């Protein structure tokens, strides 16, 4: 279990800026804190071990702390909505997705303290309920027939609060033979008391949280004065609005408007616009979607649904526990606030490393002489994998891992706290894909010491903690570097990376926004030297939004290695209207950026590279200086080899430059290293690395037309081999050779008329 955890208010800050840390304790009322530079976060006894360097700061010492909770579940709120004291009718289209959950809210104007007001909900099994609370107590009507999951219904609830008369009506949009899900029921309850404000998909609770959440889609919720029959709903939803009905209208929320925002538009006369809480999914097919257009921006009227989830989380909203004004002279790099509340033991971990990066100073006047090397911290990928819980939500991953699924203390805590919210790999409790991930919450796997169920036998590290292998190596070899994060690049663009001659990636830079992609390509095309230190990079397109800062969106559209699959028609990002999915499917395969692209994955063991004839090309002489070896990287902390987890290869048809040299290729993979699905049409019987020679990592190098160069390791596992044998090994040597040459400003040859040898 975890007894302490936390998150920063942002993932990067410049020297002199203040960064706030939010910490929660499960025991005691205080914790110790200190600022550290993160050097090596992998505790594997086979490796260099944990390394952190204390940076004295005003944060050092004891701080008060307490338990902070997270209130998950999305909803729409209209705080100023007046009391529904006179007869009214509520209409909505509804698509419930988790009918086994009890006590869900469709609409509430309910005072939880006094148990009065009006609540329209769903009972376990999918039965619509109407609850009125007032001077006569609380009374509930339950529909006699249930709604069926993932079917659209037209729901009408007419209520006279004064008399307690209630009429519930629902009918399916598609009437299946033998189905029994129509309701038309009249009941009399007690008089409803008055309450104000209004919520959809949730109810404000007495303790200040929002609870009783709804899982499913709502589309076109409407409130009109008076009690009216179900048959009026069609007329109400037509445009232009019927004048007579318009006079009765209290509110009509058209979710097809302002889809890219956190607001909902009431097109009724009172303009009771709503605010969305906890980032429910928008750009969702509505009840009337026909498929004639798949873009909500072009056909918004077919995208009038919002998909609410009881486990959506946007902002944990924790109080700040510690603030640090970063020293003005703090070097750029990876850091963490190390917090602790006692000794860890076999039952509980009592420390946490809350990670962040220090960038160069923003003010050009304060930048001074900068290193020419930049580490592009893949924070988009860290956010995509934030609290990756497929070992909990997906089930059956043991067969993929080829060994028992590993849970550490963090994972046990994650299991008990679904309100933490999932990663972009997870599904919600209702089975729909998690399309948004926010960094405004504790992210248990963006931390040193986290050992992942996904990380390959041995160290079992992934993403951030795997990247600490590279931080350690850079420090060991004495290379100075700046850090820019993905989010910084998204906002700052090309100008932010223009000053650097060399950019090194992390082990798995998988997720990129359009702005990031464009900036990176511009940098490469202007002579930059890219050292791609991982595998499966530049794979998925993501989006950010100014309306939801700190959150990132993904649509797992069409193709690719996908733990969940976006519904047809829901491939466009709600944040910005862009078509989502693989960069390859957008016409920008990873090969275009880095010279290589994703070919295979396997999560247990890694293998070695065998030198290829291109290694002896004079253009590659500098790479193999001091490395006569035929076999490269038959060792490593990540699966026991340098070629593993996810592999890339050269494919000119997909955009790998025609001058890429195949320096070495991996071999000896087991049948568990499998070809990825976008690489085949009909399913071949030889998907595994033991029978398919396309399953390999290509160690690759090529010059660019602007005098720059690309070097690709094509393997997530490469960095796990850097420290082997006290950093004296061929993986380390090759990496160092490349980095030293890339830092040498002499341009790379661009003409085949040279002999290819570098100065």
């Amino acid at each position, binding site marked *: 279990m975890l007894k302490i955890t936390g998150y920063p208010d942002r993932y990067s800050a410049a020297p002199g800026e203040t960064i706030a840390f939010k910490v929660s304790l499960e025991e005691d009322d205080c914790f110790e804190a200190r600022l550290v530079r993160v050097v090596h976060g992998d505790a594997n006894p086979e490796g260099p071990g944990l390394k952190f360097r204390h940076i004295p700061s005003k944060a050092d010492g004891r701080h008060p702390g307490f338990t902070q909770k997270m209130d998950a579940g999305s909803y729409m709120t209209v705080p100023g909505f007046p009391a529904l004291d006179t007869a009214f009718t509520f209409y909505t289209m509804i698509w419930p997705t988790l009918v086994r959950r009890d006590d869900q809210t469709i609409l509430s104007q309910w005072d939880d303290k006094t148990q009065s007001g009006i609540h329209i909900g769903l009972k376990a099994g999918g039965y619509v309920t109407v609850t009125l609370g007032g001077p006569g107590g609380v009374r509930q009507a339950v529909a006699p027939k249930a709604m069926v999951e993932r079917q659209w219904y037209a729901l009408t609830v007419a209520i006279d609060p004064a008399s307690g008369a209630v009429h519930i009506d629902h009918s399916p949009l598609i009437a299946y033979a033998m189905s029994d899900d129509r309701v038309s029921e009249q009941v009399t309850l007690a008089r409803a008391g008055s309450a104000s404000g209004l919520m959809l998909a949730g109810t404000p609770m007495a303790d200040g949280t929002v609870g009783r959440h709804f899982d499913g889609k709502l589309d076109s919720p409407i409130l009109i004065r008076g009690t009216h029959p179900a048959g009026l709903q069609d007329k109400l939803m037509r445009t232009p609005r019927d004048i007579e009905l318009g006079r009765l209208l209290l509110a009509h929320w058209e979710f097809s408007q302002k889809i890219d925002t956190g607001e909902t538009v009431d097109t009724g006369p009172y303009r009771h616009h709503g605010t969305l809480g906890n980032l429910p999914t928008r750009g969702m097919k509505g009840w009337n979607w026909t498929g004639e257009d798949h873009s909500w921006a072009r056909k918004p009227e077919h995208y009038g649904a919002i998909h609410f989830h009881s486990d959506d989380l946007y902002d944990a909203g924790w109080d700040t526990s510690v603030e640090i004004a970063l020293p003005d002279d703090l070097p750029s790099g990876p850091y963490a606030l190390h917090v602790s509340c006692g000794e860890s033991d076999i039952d509980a971990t009592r420390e946490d490393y809350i990670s962040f990066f220090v960038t160069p100073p923003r003010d050009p006047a304060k930048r001074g002489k900068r290193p020419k090397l930049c580490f592009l911290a893949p924070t988009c990928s860290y956010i995509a994998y934030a609290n990756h819980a497929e070992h909990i939500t997906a*089930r059956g991953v043991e067969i993929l891992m*080829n060994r028992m699924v590993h849970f550490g203390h963090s994972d*046990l805590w994650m299991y*008990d706290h679904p309100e933490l919210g999932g990663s972009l790999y997870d599904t919600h409790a209702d089975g729909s894909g998690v399309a948004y991930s926010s960094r405004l919450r504790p992210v248990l796997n963006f931390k040193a010491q986290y050992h992942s169920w996904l990380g390959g036998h041995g160290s079992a590290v992934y993403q951030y903690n795997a990247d600490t292998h590279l931080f350690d190596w850079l420090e060991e070899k004495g290379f100075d570097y700046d850090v820019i994060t993905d989010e910084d690049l998204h906002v700052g663009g090309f100008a932010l990376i223009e000053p650097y001659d060399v950019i090194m990636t992390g082990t798995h830079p998988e997720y990129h926004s359009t702005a990031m992609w464009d900036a990176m390509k511009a940098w490469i095309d202007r002579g930059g030297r890219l050292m791609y230190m991982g595998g499966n990079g530049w794979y998925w397109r993501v989006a950010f939004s100014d309306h939801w800062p700190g959150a990132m969106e993904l649509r797992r559209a069409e193709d690719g290695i996908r733990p969940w699959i976006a519904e047809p028609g829901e491939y466009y990002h709600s944040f910005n209207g862009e078509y989502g999915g693989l960069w390859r499917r957008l016409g920008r395969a990873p090969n275009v950026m880095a010279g290589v692209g994703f070919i295979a994955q396997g999560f247990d063991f890694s293998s070695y590279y065998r030198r290829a004839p291109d290694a002896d090309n004079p253009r590659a002489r500098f790479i193999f200086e001091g490395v006569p070896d035929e076999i490269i990287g038959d060792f490593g902390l990540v699966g026991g080899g340098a070629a593993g987890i996810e592999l890339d290869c050269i494919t000119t048809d997909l955009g790998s430059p025609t001058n890429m040299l195949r320096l070495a290729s991996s071999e000896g993979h087991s049948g568990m290293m499998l070809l990825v699905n976008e690489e085949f049409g009909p399913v071949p019987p030889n998907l595994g690395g033991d029978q398919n020679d396309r399953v390999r990592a290509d160690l690759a190098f090529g010059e660019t037309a602007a005098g720059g160069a690309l070097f690709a390791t094509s393997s997530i596992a490469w960095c796990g081999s850097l420290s082997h044998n006290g950093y004296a090994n061929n993986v380390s040597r090759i990496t160092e050779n490349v980095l030293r040459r890339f830092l040498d400003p002499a341009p790379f040859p661009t003409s085949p008329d040279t002999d290819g040898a570098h100065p």
Partner: protein
Amino acid sequence: MVYKIVAEDDRKYVEEFREAPITAHRSPGLQRVLNIMRLYRGGDQYILIARKEFHDYVIGRMPPLRDDPIVIEDDMVFTSREAAEWELFCRRWRQHTGEIINQHYEDKTA
């Protein structure tokens, strides 16, 4: 119908697994046995819980619904992942074949 593990046919893979419960290369026959054992058919899922990373492991059972707690078998502590894999293999072998394997992971043949 998928492959059915039969003691008579598959017993030959037991020692191969015990020699190396976690390894890069296995015989296709053993990999098939393991794949069949690991298929998720509903119900509880076995997991490996690291009480102290790289040093101390126990087996856990994760129920089908997340609303229910993980059951931690802390009466059997393993000092390696391999030892835990062997224990789980033996349980599954018994489920599939009815046979009990009376060998400990540490008792490797000389």
